[in-house]
């Protein structure tokens, strides 16, 4: 029974991927392409879908990990302030004309910002030799408010153009996606995913509670730290690729839990796949709804994600309450 569901799930994800490549706003038939269409497919659509896939995978997996580590079904990588920290760093980079890494300067600053915030959250969440879920959550929320405030201050003081660019970046802009950042981001995301997959058992045990995790033979604080680091790595890479796109980390684990159960060994990779497919789909919708106007993918995920999340809340199984 389970295998059937998994197969269907994978097939659907694959179908969405293919659709994202060949559909909207113009259908491209890969078997009969003109030179222009081939150009569009390879230079524009392919990197765009690749970025969406990578980001979605990173965020989906991060959400699954975080919800387990924090034992909180509302946990999302962005709740911990990682997105506002990254946005602040990106905005600073944009407005100060930081150009050391050439065209990749803004993504690199976003990555640095996200990583720094993760470390900060970890530092505030640390006490007596370990990371504590409640402290992490509170520290993250607090830092989120702080960085958002500083960001708003910065934006109110900045020029129109810098402002416009910063805002556009934050909304999750995949329209200029190209191959430059994909290799380095992929490495980080693959490493993060790998760590998480290898430590799925520890994640399951952590969900049962620190005592049971200890009783089952895990070094609780160490496992928590490793999983947190993997999550931070993936989220930072994702933010550097395409800005802040919300709801994926929050929503995908819940959907996968409904379909395939809560076992982390399945939940983490399935959330990754679901996230990748969902973002590809959101990007497809964003660019196909009112062509040639392109809605930022972050907006689409929010518009689809928020109502669906509220709907999910009505199903008791999801939260166990």
């Amino acid at each position, binding site marked *: 029974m389970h295998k059937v569901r998994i197969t269907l799930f994978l097939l659907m994800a694959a179908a969405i991927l293919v659709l994202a490549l060949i559909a909207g706003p113009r259908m491209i038939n890969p078997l009969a392409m003109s030179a222009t269409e081939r150009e569009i497919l390879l230079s524009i659509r392919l990197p765009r879908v690749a970025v969406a896939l990578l980001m979605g995978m990173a965020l989906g997996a991060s959400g699954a990990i975080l919800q*387990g580590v924090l*034992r909180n*079904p509302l946990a999302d990588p962005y709740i911990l302030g990682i997105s506002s920290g990254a946005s602040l760093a990106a905005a600073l980079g944009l407005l100060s004309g930081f150009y050391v890494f050439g065209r990749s300067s803004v993504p690199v600053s976003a990555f640095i910002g996200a990583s720094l915030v993760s470390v900060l959250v970890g530092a505030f969440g640390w006490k*007596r030799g370990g990371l504590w879920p409640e402290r992490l959550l509170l520290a993250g929320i607090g830092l989120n408010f702080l960085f958002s405030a500083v960001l708003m201050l910065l934006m109110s003081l900045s020029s129109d153009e810098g402002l416009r660019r910063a805002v556009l970046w934050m909304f999750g802009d995949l329209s200029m996606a190209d191959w430059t950042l994909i290799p380095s981001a992929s490495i980080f995301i693959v490493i993060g995913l790998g760590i998480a997959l290898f430590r799925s*058992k520890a994640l*399951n*045990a952590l*969900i*049962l*509670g620190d*005592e*049971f995790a*200890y*009783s*089952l*033979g*895990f*070094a609780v604080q160490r496992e928590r730290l490793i999983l947190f680091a993997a999550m931070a790595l993936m989220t930072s890479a994702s933010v550097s690729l395409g800005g802040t796109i919300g709801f994926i980390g929050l929503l995908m684990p819940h959907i996968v*839990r409904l379909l395939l*159960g*809560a*076992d982390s060994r399945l939940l983490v990779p399935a959330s990754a796949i679901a996230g990748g497919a969902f973002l590809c789909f959101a990007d497809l919708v964003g660019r196909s709804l009112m062509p040639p106007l392109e809605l930022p993918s972050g907006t689409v995920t929010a518009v689809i994600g928020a109502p669906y999340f509220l709907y999910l809340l009505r199903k008791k*199984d*999801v*939260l*166990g*309450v």
Partner: protein
Amino acid sequence: MFSAYSGPILELDRVSFRYPGAGRIIDDLTFAIGGGEFIGLLGANGSGKSTILKLAAGMVRPDRGIVKLWDRPLAAYRNKDRAKLLCYFPQHLDVSVPFTVREIVGMGMYPYDIPPAMAVDEAMDTVGLLDKADVYVTNLSGGERRRVFIAMTLIQGAGILLLDEPLANLDIRYQIEFLRLLRRLQEQKGISVVMALHDINVALQFEKVMVIKNGAVLGIGAPEAVLTGPMIRDAFDVSIELRKAEHGMYITHEKWF
């Protein structure tokens, strides 16, 4: 199995501990648990029962003294090896994630690289939850949930179960059910059970109780020997006498109020 071994399996030797910022709560504590023993750790709230269990489990490290498992320092064990021998059961079971019974029981395999001796189905059957194998743990009653975790410890194969007030908030029916289950496990598999309690009536059911006050042992032994009037007064600050009734059970004899 373990009951053939006559020496102590888990020992606390002159253990002292206090939480940072608190007064000394455990001071120079020594006791041992043998194979197949069923011990009740009785004491008022805040008497240090939980802390003693955590020290015994190795969840907290003593400031002084040593905890030994099978005559080796507990701290020297690798986490997974210790998990195969010793199991800790917290007071609060907080499972809001929709794991199925089977999934949780299966987690008992985690300390092992090879499949364990007992199959998951057998463990679920032993606790009477085989027919609910695929039910979400969130849909079970409190008593059933505890049984799920007991089944998990069966898979874990630990010889010692340290349980922190497992009967709290259970109706008497489920308390009896739970105790009977543990008794079966003790008899069939030779598991040692140490259970923290603060209900004197339950403690009377045990063959061996250890009375705790302020982190120190007031007495160890059979309930009729240990739970005398003065002892209860000292440990619980209340004046109640115990009397023998039929079937060798003790009941309190005067009206409480």
